[in-house]
């Protein structure tokens, strides 16, 4: 039986290439069918690709390389025998004995494959012990927070990285997933506005120690793509933001009243997101342009409502999409969001999950944001920003009362949505949130 080629799978219509982020098995090792084999990073997501068959892995393309969809990146040979395991790292120890023979036996180069990639990534040569550890444990050095002089990674840094749980070791501002915590106070999916994407990098920088005045960290493939798309969005669309505020007391009252029954009946907590998704859909039905997109010189109106809910993960911002959310009940919405949260945490969100949304909701409120200006998620034309709920004095019937208020921000593409439409759209959402009965009565 011949060796079976490993090809880069297609991950979505418009995606033609990705980055081979890392091999999850080492060269020469025996791989079982279905075992996670490599990680592929594309514009939208990082996905784990399983081995299609059983065999001994021969790597043809190194980590960090950009690969085309459909390209062959290695083979799985069912007939071969696995190589002497860990030949690379262990051989180094043996061959570095101070023999008097001038010919230095070069340490098996296999381990070097990922090492070269690593050195190239960080630009700073790795210390010998770091090279060995990184090779033995198949770590991407750009993921390790350095504390050495001039931003170098020390052996201790690698050891600490190996100790820490994966989420924490990324050291990004938060890795808060979608709420299985929907029943918690103000739990709403931690959506992402542009600032969140950069929050993580700041956390990295603040770990730069007295060793140097600067620390340099290569952006992950996903983050690089997100960065590109954000800039693209900003430069293509005419993005404006309109604001309003919503009195959350009715929603809070409903939640308080029904939360136990909801959980018992539906097996999931009743969060805020389901209300907002429903309110958004109501508004989208009233102002269909907001649900559309620009394609060349055409406006494309979508006759369905796929609502994306932004999630901050340790790899960056992701927006999984609730398909045909208008047909989903409150419980179904909450369940879907919880399921995405789980997938995000595990890093198993697929590109399919992220494609094709028509509108996005993002929530900076869990991080305490009072007000912000979300950026569009291209090619969508609108995005709703939710914020922290704060008790404020407001005037109701000429009386000053204290209400739990949330500022709402709606960023939109002014090329197809005009000011009046934008304001009205947001007012509609406000109305439905402040009086949830309107959702029932389509008022």
């Amino acid at each position: 039986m011949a060796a079976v080629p490993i090809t880069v799978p297609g991950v979505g219509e418009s995606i033609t290439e990705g980055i081979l982020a890392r091999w999850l098995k080492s060269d020469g090792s025996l791989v079982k069918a279905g075992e996670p084999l490599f990680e592929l990073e594309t514009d939208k997501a990082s996905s784990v690709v399983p081995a299609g068959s059983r065999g001994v892995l021969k790597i043809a393309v190194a980590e960090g390389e950009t690969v085309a969809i459909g390209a062959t990146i290695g083979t799985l040979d069912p007939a071969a025998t696995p190589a002497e395991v860990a030949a690379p790292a262990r051989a180094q120890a043996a061959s570095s004995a101070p023999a008097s023979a001038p010919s230095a036996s070069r340490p098996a180069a296999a381990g070097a494959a990922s090492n070269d990639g690593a050195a190239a990534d960080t630009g700073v040569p790795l210390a010998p012990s770091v090279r060995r550890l990184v090779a033995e444990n198949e770590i991407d050095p750009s993921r390790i927070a350095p504390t050495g002089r001039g931003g170098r990674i020390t052996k201790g840094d690698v050891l600490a990285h190996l100790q820490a749980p994966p989420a924490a070791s990324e050291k990004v501002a938060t890795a808060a997933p979608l709420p299985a915590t929907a029943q918690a106070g103000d739990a709403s999916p931690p959506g992402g506005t542009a600032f969140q994407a950069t929050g993580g990098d700041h956390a990295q920088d603040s770990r730069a120690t007295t060793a140097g005045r600067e620390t340099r960290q290569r952006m992950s493939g996903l983050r690089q793509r997100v960065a590109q798309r954000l800039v693209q969005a900003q430069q293509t669309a005419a993005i404006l933001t309109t604001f309003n505020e919503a009195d959350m007391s009715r929603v809070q009252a409903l939640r308080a009243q029904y939360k136990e029954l909801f959980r018992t009946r539906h097996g999931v907590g009743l969060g805020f997101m389901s209300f907002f998704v429903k309110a958004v859909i109501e508004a989208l039905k009233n102002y269909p342009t907001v649900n559309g997109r620009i394609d060349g010189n055409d406006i494309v109106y979508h006759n369905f409502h796929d609502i994306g809910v932004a999630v901050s993960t340790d790899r960056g911002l992701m927006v999984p999409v609730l398909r045909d959310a208008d047909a989903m009940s409150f419980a179904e919405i909450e369940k879907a969001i919880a399921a995405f949260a789980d997938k995000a945490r595990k890093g198993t969100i697929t590109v399919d999950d992220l494609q094709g949304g028509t509108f996005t909701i993002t929530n900076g409120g869990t991080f305490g944001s009072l007000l912000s200006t979300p950026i569009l998620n291209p090619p969508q034309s609108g995005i709703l920003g939710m914020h922290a709920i704060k008790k404020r004095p407001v005037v109701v019937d000429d009386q000053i009362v204290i209400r739990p208020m949330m500022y709402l921000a709606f960023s939109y593409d002014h090329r197809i949505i005009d000011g009046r439409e934008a304001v009205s759209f947001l007012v509609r959402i406000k109305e439905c949130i402040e009086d949830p009965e309107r959702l029932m009565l389509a008022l």
Partner: protein
Amino acid sequence: MAQRYDLVVIGAGPGGYVAAIRAAQLGMKVACVEKRASLGGTCLNVGCIPSKAMLDSSELYHLAHERFGRHGIKVDGLGLDLAAMLKRKNEVVKSLTDGVRYLFRKNKVEAILGAGRLTSPTTVQVAASEGAPIELEAGHILLATGSEPTPLSFLPFDGKAIVNSTNALCFEQVPDHLVVVGGGYIGLELGSVWKRLGSKVTVIEFLPRIVPMADVEIGDILKKSLTRQGLEFHLETKVTGAKVQDASVTVTAETKDGKALSVACDKVLVAVGRRPYTEGLNLDGAGVKVEAKTGKVPVDAHFRTNIPTISAIGDLIRGPMLAHKAEDEGIACAEILAGKPGHVNYDTIPSVIYTWPEMASVGITEEQAQQEGLKYRVGKFPFLANGRAKAMDETEGLVKVLADATTDRVLGVHIIGPRASDMIAEAVTTMEFAGSAEDIARICHAHPTLSEALREAALAVDKRAIHS
């Protein structure tokens, strides 16, 4: 008529002359005041350099006596011409002090001969050897006047029978019996010199150990070696007095158990330490605070004294009294004055003792690690198992590496053996880069060299030395 400078450095020792040159490189107009006619301070004139010259010369003499035979070299009529040895030492000193003068000229640092004295926070008066005193106006003043040997109050130096290290570098005759008071590195180095040249040497030390700051295991090895070389040690013994009678001296001392000790000798070298030298500077008059107990000048992290226009470095201030520490401080201070960030890493300053075998260390000792409750691992490797050492017939000593038990970061390296003074540089570099023992172990070391012993000791931290 005052001459104005951006920086006036008082003292042309390693701290002062290096600071002056660096400041000049950074564009400042610099004057360096030195009362000794030859530049270079204690280090070049009566410290590091002459002592190393004597140590190397006397070591060769010792080898000729004791070791050449092992190499199959027959020596007939081996003799010592002390005058010639001293002359060579003086020539070495002169060429280096001339070198500093040349460097000053090259960098346009004005060398001013005379004793400097602070007349205000920004003015220095120099008492010239002839003529009126010179007035210098300074944008900033750097005190780098160094240190002098500390006398014992009951045993003042007389330069003949009761001597200090400066005198001990130019005895005109090899003493019959030299008593060294103080078992620190100065006493041991000079004691070694004269032992090799034929003196009987007795070292009297107040503490229970010689080289008390060193790693205990390494210090023990040194003591054994020096004892084998013929030095006699009285530890935990306090010198109480000395009586000079014509050409001989009787030293009285008291041991720990109260026993009296009396030693007859012809010279007593008092090497109990050094203290900051600020005589004639007029620090009081200028308002510069001085620590009463130690005589040191307190400074902040930027080497500034309590007077904002006056800084101090080197032996005058806190920290080990080492020439290279003063040099690093000189550079850092000059850079800070020029508006750049300047920094000295005190954790990675190596210290060396030039006895033979040499002793060198950087970082913490095993005792310090234990005191601080650090979890550490140790790797050791003896020179006896090192190819080059064997070929050189210099197999005494070992290398010891201390590494953090969790991160493997090198915490300290201690070497006693041939050329330890040169070998320690690799350890210092590794520690500056927060390197691990494994890093040293995985780096290629030329064969056959003494440096391989460091590599094997690093391997030994992980219990996988190849050659032992």
